Structures are given as structure tokens and as C-alpha cells.
């Protein structure tokens, strides 16, 4: 079911269950305490009455006076049978008079309707209050069952004694042989307990309701960051990579998660933007030669041309096509390097020789530009791909010559330092401005926004890719109008 898969609902259900258990435990305890209190109170009352009756039973007759008879003349709460119940053998009557202080304690004027039954030594009933209820038909039976037990005080109430319409009573056998039974209705207590039960249930319900509402609010509140995160993630998966999660509480666990996700999104965004930029740059680089070919051919075809003009057009188209071919080749190479398909050969060779070859290769270009090359090389064995590293060397040298001043200098130095082969190529050119230098290894990046140099703008990007594929590093430091130094570090 969907509802059980939602964290919010699961938390809510667990929380609700715990709340219900706690409330139920609390309510049960409160109910039991209240019940105990009520039973205790009734038992105290019953004991008090038994005590009074016992005293009255053994009061010396001399103290009795006609005035004392008065309670019995009024509508009597108790009836005294001097002869015992009909059908029983008459015995010497035991005189019993309900003492005046006990008159108010029995009878229907009390809610609990206390009543008593007194039995003589032989089991004959001596006295019984008028209000002994019909439901006490079993009384005689219980009484008879119990009276032979030696210690018949505090006879426990029947189990259901406190149930509605039930009674509670206690026996006491006096040392003189009489048995006193005092009982009462527990109707008021039953009602009170019922009320307590209702109140507890009511309060419990209200607390549960508030608990649920509070829990819902709290859970929603604590899960809101997750909703924010998922909303942002949805937008991002829909293609809007600029989305970020709003991080309000950076210190909480979710805040940290959001920060981590945000940095991931930022990296994705950057990679994506770079990719898009690259694609757009490729398109841009290809557009210019295509435009050249289109305008050249359309112009040429506008009217009849001389063979020389056609030749010129064809040559221009060829130049454009060659430029595209060069660009495509370089792009393919970069793509392979990116994909890691271009396996670097691992050959042990003298890097010094490769650098010297590179210097020889670019000498004609240097002479053409009037640039002098100074090489300071020491033999140095390294492991790597000779062809690729030679490409890096020529790239750096060509750059150093092309961006040099007329009659400038290029210095090449190869040295070993701390287990690394360090190649530096420095020129005396115009240098790279501070804002450009972090970008020189980016694809198609040119400080000078033009295409006149005839380069693809990918040379340094490729050099970097090759050096890094060898586990090395390449960096640039430059000073405007003083020159630029490229440093390549390779494991030797």
C-alpha cells in the first residue's frame, strides 16, 4: 500500500502507536488507582460500621433507657427479631438495640444504602436492617459458607463486587460467637468509576488527537527539506541544471545532505555547461569554413568566371576544407583522450632526445619569425608514450614561437628534480593576462578572440590531456609584456 511506503505516514503510524500505548498504560494505572481508592474508602466505612455494631451488641443492658428506644420507634432502619426467623428454634433472645450514633449510618438516606445482618451464635438471625436488598439472596449462603472459618474478618468481596448493581460486604465473627455482616450498594462508586473511565478515555482521546496533529506538523516540518530536495532534483532531472536546493539549516543532517547534493548539482551543471560550450565552439569553428565555402561558391556561380577566378575559388574552398579536416582530427583525438580510449604506450625512453627532436622540428618556423631557441637539456629517462609526448613538446614550442615578439627568445630546459622530469618552455612574448591565464588550457580558448593565428585553439587542451594521461601535470605562469613559462612535470 502506498501509504505504508511514505516515510511521513510510517513515522506517523509508529508515533501514533507509541502514543496510544503510553496513553493506555497511563489511563489503566489511573483507573486502577481510582478504583483502589474507592474500594478502600468503602471498606473503611464498612469496618467502621462493623465496629459500631459490635460495640452496641455488647453494651451493658443497664445503660439502656427508654429514651434509647427512640430510634426504633421511628421508621426503623433496622428490624429486630427477638425470636429469630420464623421456623427457627426460639432461643434466649439477645437484646439488640441500634445505638443512636449508628442510626444515621444505615438506611436508604445514605447513597450507599448500608445494611447489616447480625447472626447469633447458633446461626439464628438476631437482627437485620430493613434495607437488605433482594439481590442479597445469596448472602445467607455465603454467610454460612464462611462462618465456620476461624478468622472471618475482612472477607474479600466477590470478584464482581464493584460492578454495577452489585454490593460489597464484610463479615466479622465476634469472640462471643455472633457474626456481623455489613454490606452496602456500590452503585455510586460504580457510577463514579464509569465517569472516571469516560473522562480518562476523553482526555486520552484529546491528547491523542493533539499528539497526532502535533506529530503531523512536526514530521511534515522535519521532512520539508526532503521535499525541497526532491523538488529540486525533479527540476534538475527535467533538465534545469541551474536549480539548487534552498539550504536553510546547513547544520542539520538534511542540510548537510542538501549541501552535498548542491555541490554535486553544481559539478554536473559545470560539466554540462562545459560540454554545451564545447559543442557550440565546435559548431562555431566549423561554421566559418563552411561560410567561406558557401560564399566562395555562390559568388563564383553568380556569373561566368575566368579560369583564374575559378581556380582561386577552388583554392579557397580547399583551404576551408583542410581547416575543417584538421579541426575534425583534433576533435576526434580529444574525444578519444576524454573517453580514455587512447591507451598511452608505456615505453622507457630518453625524454631529452624527444625534446631535442622537437626543437629541431620547429627551427624553420623559429627562423621565419626571427625567434632564437636556447635549449638546456640533460639526459633523462622516463616512461611514457614517445609520440604523444613529442606532440606536447612541439605544441609548447610552436606556441612559444607564435606568440613571441619578433627577435624574441624561446628557452627550453629539461631537468630532473625529486624524481620528476621537469620541462620548462619560456618565451619572451606578450604574456597572458591575469584574467586569461586560468583558461588557457580550456578548449577553444584564445586570449585574442580571432582566428587569424590559424590554430585550432585546442593545442594546449590536448597537451594537458596527454600530460594528465601520463599522471603528470602542466601549468602556466605568465607576466604581461615579459613572457610566459609553461612547466610540464612527469614521473621519471
Amino acid at each position: 500500500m502506498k501509504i505504508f511506503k511514505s516515510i511521513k505516514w510510517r513515522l506517523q503510524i509508529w508515533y501514533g502507536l507509541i502514543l496510544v500505548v503510553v496513553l493506555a498504560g497511563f489511563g489503566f494505572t489511573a483507573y486502577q488507582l481510582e478504583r483502589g481508592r474507592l474500594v478502600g474508602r468503602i471498606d473503611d466505612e464498612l469496618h467502621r460500621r462493623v465496629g459500631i455494631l459490635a460495640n452496641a451488641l455488647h453494651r451493658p443492658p443497664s445503660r439502656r433507657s427508654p429514651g434509647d428506644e427512640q430510634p426504633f420507634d421511628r421508621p426503623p432502619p433496622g428490624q429486630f427479631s427477638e425470636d429469630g426467623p420464623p421456623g427457627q428454634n426460639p432461643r434466649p433472645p439477645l437484646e439488640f438495640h441500634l445505638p443512636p450514633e449508628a442510626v444515621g449510618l444505615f438506611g436508604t438516606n445514605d447513597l450507599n444504602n448500608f445494611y447489616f445482618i447480625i447472626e447469633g451464635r447458633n446461626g439464628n438471625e438476631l437482627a437485620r436492617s430493613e434495607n437488605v436488598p433482594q439481590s442479597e439472596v445469596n448472602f445467607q449462603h455465603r454467610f454460612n459458607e464462611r462462618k465456620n472459618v476461624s478468622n472471618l474478618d475482612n472477607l474479600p468481596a466477590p470478584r464482581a463486587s464493584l460492578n454495577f448493581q452489585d454490593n460489597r460486604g464484610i463479615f466479622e465473627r465476634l469472640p462471643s460467637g455472633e457474626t456481623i455482616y455489613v454490606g452496602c450498594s456500590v452503585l455510586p462508586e460504580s457510577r463514579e468509576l464509569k465517569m472516571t473511565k469516560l473522562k480518562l478515555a476523553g482526555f486520552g482521546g484529546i491528547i491523542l488527537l493533539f499528539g497526532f496533529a502535533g506529530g503531523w506538523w512536526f514530521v511534515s516540518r522535519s521532512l520539508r527539506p526532503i521535499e525541497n530536495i526532491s523538488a529540486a532534483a525533479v527540476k534538475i532531472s527535467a533538465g534545469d541544471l541551474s536549480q539548487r536546493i534552498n539550504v536553510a539549516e546547513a547544520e542539520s543532517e538534511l542540510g548537510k545532505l542538501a549541501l552535498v547534493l548542491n555541490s554535486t548539482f553544481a559539478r554536473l551543471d559545470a560539466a554540462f555547461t562545459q560540454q554545451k560550450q564545447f559543442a557550440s565552439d565546435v559548431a562555431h569553428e566549423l561554421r566559418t569554413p563552411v561560410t567561406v565555402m558557401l560564399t566562395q561558391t555562390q559568388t563564383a556561380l553568380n556569373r561566368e568566371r575566368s579560369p583564374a577566378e575559378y581556380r582561386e575559388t577552388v583554392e579557397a574552398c580547399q583551404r576551408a576544407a583542410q581547416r575543417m579536416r584538421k579541426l575534425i582530427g583534433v576533435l576526434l583525438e580529444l574525444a578519444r583522450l576524454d573517453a580514455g580510449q587512447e591507451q598511452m604506450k608505456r615505453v622507457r625512453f630518453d625524454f631529452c632526445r624527444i625534446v631535442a627532436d622537437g626543437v629541431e622540428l620547429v627551427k624553420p618556423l623559429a627562423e621565419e619569425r626571427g625567434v632564437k631557441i636556447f635549449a638546456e637539456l640533460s639526459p633523462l629517462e622516463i616512461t611514457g608514450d614517445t609520440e604523444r609526448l613529442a606532440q606536447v613538446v612541439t605544441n609548447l614550442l610552436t606556441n612559444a614561437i607564435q606568440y613571441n615578439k619578433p627577435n624574441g627568445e624561446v628557452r627550453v630546459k629539461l631537468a630532473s628534480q625529486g624524481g620528476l622530469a621537469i620541462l620548462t618552455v619560456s618565451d619572451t612574448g606578450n604574456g597572458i593576462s591575469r584574467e586569461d591565464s586560468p583558461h588557457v588550457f580550456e578548449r577553444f580558448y584564445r586570449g585574442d578572440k580571432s582566428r587569424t593565428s590559424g590554430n585550432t585553439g585546442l593545442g594546449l587542451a590536448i597537451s594537458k590531456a596527454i600530460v594528465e594521461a601520463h599522471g603528470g601535470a602542466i601549468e602556466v605562469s605568465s607576466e604581461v609584456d615579459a613572457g610566459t613559462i609553461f612547466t610540464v612535470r612527469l614521473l621519471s
Partner: protein
Amino acid sequence: MRILIVEDEPDLLRSLAQALREEGYAVDTANNGEDGLFNAEGCDYDAIVLDVMLPKMDGWEILKRLRKTKKTPVLMLTARDQPRDRVRGLDTGADDYVVKPFDLSELFARLRAIIRRSANKTTNVIEIGDVKIDTAARNVLLKERPVELTAREYSLMEFLALHRGEVVTRTQLYEHLFDENESSLSNLLDVHVSNVRKKLGAEFIVTRRGHGYCIE
């Protein structure tokens, strides 16, 4: 009509200039931003074809600086086709935008359009009395019959027609009909004017002595 092309790709610059010259325009060229701005500020071109990516100074910068002094119609030429770039170009003051690679015919049409707009004309057809000039097809009808004009004659007549009612000085005509490489002989203009009059009627072009020419 005199046009400046600022473009750093030599093959493209050459073929564009040739094509536009063959269309009857006088064409000046510049292959970097600084020269381009210098030319654009120094002469009243009828239109400028401006590449965005240029050495020394890019197209945006040229446009920004040029707009401080001149209203010359500018057609931007660029390889970037993002709406962002186009919006930027138009907002900086470019009159139109062509994305590389383009068709020459489209480039010509857009050039004609921006020139026409700068002369406050809405259609390609200008009617003056019996003469009907179609600036798109570059042909002229006199009483519904086509008239053969040389490219130069057509340019002269078109320029005067676009500035109908205004007196156009000889200097202005020289500036708009001949590019910087042509040695403008002083009587060459008179020859073209008289040829046009022969073909379209003597009253078509009026001479204002000491001032210049005018189509009324």
C-alpha cells in the same frame, strides 16, 4: 551604395567583397576590429557588415563605440546562433543579424532591407513619375518598359531616389558610389549622371549648381 565589411577570415572577406561589388555596391574592407572602427567612424557608409569575433577589438565593442557617433545600419555576422547572442547584438544597436553559414542571397536581401529602412522606405519599389525602381531586383521601368542601366548608373540613380527631394552633394555621391580603392575622377560622376538622364529623361535628375543633384 557604399558598404564596409569587417571580417577577419581572408577568404570570406575577399569573396564577400567581390560578391557585393558585383551587386553594384562600393565596398571597403577591414580585417580587424581597430581598422574596422576607424573606417566606420571616418566615412558615411550606407551599411556595415560586421563580424563578431575579430582580432584587436570584437564586433560588440565596435558597435558600442560606433553608436556614440553614427547611426549607420549595421548587419552583424556571427557564428553564434544562441538567442542570447542575437538579443545582445540587437540591443547593442545592430540593425540585423545573420548567422554563419548564410546564403549570399539572404545576406543581400537583409542588406537591402536595412538600407531601405534607414532611408525610411517600407517597400522595395520606388515610383517617381513614369519611372518605377525595384531595388530588390535592381531593375528600372520607364512607362512599364525595362531600361538597361549599368551597375554604377543604377547605384547613382538609386541613391538619389532614396534621398528623393534632398539635394545630394557631389562629395556625398563620391563617398557612396566609389570605394577607397577607386580613383574617383571628377568627371566620372558627370558621365554617369548624363547617361542616366539619356535613359530616363533629361528632367529626371535636376542639377543644383554649386550644390549637387536632386530627384524631385
